[in-house]
């Protein structure tokens, strides 16, 4: 009895130590990956804009100033003004807050629901797995953006519903990813040993399985944040996402369409902002994937 207890304990320290060394190895690889560094830098600038918006731009980004509408870029308004005379720079800076909020909220929904469900589906298998997977199939019968669109049609427009709709559309992918990883980890000897020594299921899942599926979850989360920003911008552009006057990049582009003939700058800059925000998450995600992959040399 005592022996088993000691063995399990040893096993745990081993796993933790392995994780620490593989973690620092991945971190070293990530630091050497130039693309990931560029992504990280963009991401820092983006988060800086989101948090520092009130410092970087004085005034209300949603307050109209009709005497200054549709001004091209000038010294006073670096990126020009929109149809209501609002500074585009100010709206883009405050828009960074909105998009970051959406990205975090969306992956929050995906992680909080998708990961536990995926863990349970993969670990228990059998009927539980079958039911969960058929349910997932149902959601995967639609391309992601369309699923979000359908959910918005039910829930209605606005920031909160945008986050919920896109978040739900991300859940099935998390479930599939986590389940797939659990299926391989479940067969490892250390899981079998833990089970044989009578460790409780929930303890095995949290202590032994979850740490080993964290890497793919991290990569997927980084890429998903980029997708979430793109989806939210798409919904905003269609007029069924975040509603004006909230400075959301997609809805800025949506309203700019009517004025792009004479003043193309109105439609240009919000798109550039979306592009760099998504690019930063994609670069970082790709870098993380390489860093976690034991086969990659970089």
């Amino acid at each position, binding site marked *: 009895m005592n022996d088993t207890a000691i063995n399990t304990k040893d096993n745990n320290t081993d796993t933790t130590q392995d994780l620490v060394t593989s973690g620092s190895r991945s971190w070293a690889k990530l630091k050497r990956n130039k693309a990931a560094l560029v992504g990280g830098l963009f991401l820092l600038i983006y988060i800086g804009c989101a948090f520092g918006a009130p410092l970087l731009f004085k005034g209300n980004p949603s307050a109209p100033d009709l005497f200054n509408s549709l001004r091209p870029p000038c010294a006073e308004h670096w990126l020009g003004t929109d149809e209501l005379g609002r500074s585009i720079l100010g709206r883009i800076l405050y828009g960074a807050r909105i998009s970051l909020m959406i990205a975090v909220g969306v992956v929050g929904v995906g992680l909080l629901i998708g990961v536990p469900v995926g863990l349970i589906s993969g670990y228990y298998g059998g009927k539980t797995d079958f039911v969960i997977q058929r349910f997932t199939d*149902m959601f995967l019968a639609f391309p992601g953006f369309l699923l979000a669109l359908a959910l918005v049609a039910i829930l209605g427009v606005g920031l909160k519903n945008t986050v919920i709709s896109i978040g739900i559309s991300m859940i099935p992918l998390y479930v599939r990813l986590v389940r797939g990883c659990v299926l391989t980890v479940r067969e490892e000897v250390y899981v079998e040993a833990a089970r044989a020594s009578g460790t409780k299921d929930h303890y095995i899942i949290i202590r032994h399985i979850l740490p080993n599926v964290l890497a793919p979850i991290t990569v997927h989360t980084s890429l998903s944040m980029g997708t979430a920003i793109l989806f939210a911008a798409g919904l905003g552009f269609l007029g069924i996402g975040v509603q004006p006057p909230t400075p959301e990049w997609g809805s800025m582009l949506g309203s700019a*369409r009517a004025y*792009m003939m004479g003043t193309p700058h109105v439609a240009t800059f919000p798109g550039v902002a979306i592009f760099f925000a998504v690019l930063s998450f994609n670069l970082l995600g790709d870098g993380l994937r390489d860093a976690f992959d034991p086969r990659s040399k970089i």
Partner: protein
Amino acid sequence: MINFLLKRLLSIIPVLLGISLLLFFMLRMLPGDPAQVLAGQMASPEDIEMIRTQLGLDQPVYIQYAAFLKRLVHLDLGRSARTQNPVTQEIWARLPNTILLALCAITLACAFGIPAGIIAAVRPYSWVDYLVTLASLIGISMPVFWLGIMMMILFSMTLNWLPAGGIGTWKHLIMPSFTLAAFVVAFIARMTRSSMLEVLSQDYVTTARSKGLQENLIIVKHALKNALIPIITVVGLQFGMLLGGAVLTETVFAWPGIGRLIVDSILARDYAMIQGTILIFGLLYTLINLLVDLIYAFVDPRIRYE
């Protein structure tokens, strides 16, 4: 083969049932009376009452679902609250436009993506490879509707080469197809590159090289043929993604397809139409996945579906 075909056809039935369940509960999740919602804001009390009896809303849920399925099988999706026309008729009128646009886009995406991926894989870590990688990253990160707007500003407003929107001549098709293709070309190029890289390191490629075969022949006949399966998978998946992108592209270019119909219906709260368009998208996506599976069997004779 026929056996496999039948089995695969039967396997889409649960998926279709899933889609129908989702659609069925969609309307029930809305606050308020589904009959009122389906009939629209302007409907008279008699209309609402008629819809209520038609839908059997006074019956138990499972009977309602059975009736809903029966109507689906008969392709009766109700009438649009906005135009008063049958939903199927409206969808039917626009479906060919969306399919035409999607087919043009996927053809363009393959025509650019597959060669780009092959070139990158043949010279890994060269400047061509980095260029392809960079271009795909840009493609993946760019909002498709913004690219559409930028193309419109350049090609129709500044240069006056192409019509800004609408449908009619082949010229109207150019910008929407390129915009939509940009959305997926990156994924196809990436997958082609990694799949080709894997195949090119196989022993039989080395053997072919040591036999003195021409490099072009090795790449096309030996490598590409074996690298095709993952490429086809990704093309199939991306074709589904195209349907999502079509919603945005059709809105930018005022292209009269299903994508725009769904947005207009959501804005007008025309729920019968929303239900119908979502059903069609689900159906199309399922059929594409089926088609991809069938193509596998043709491309790779090693795949035997027993």
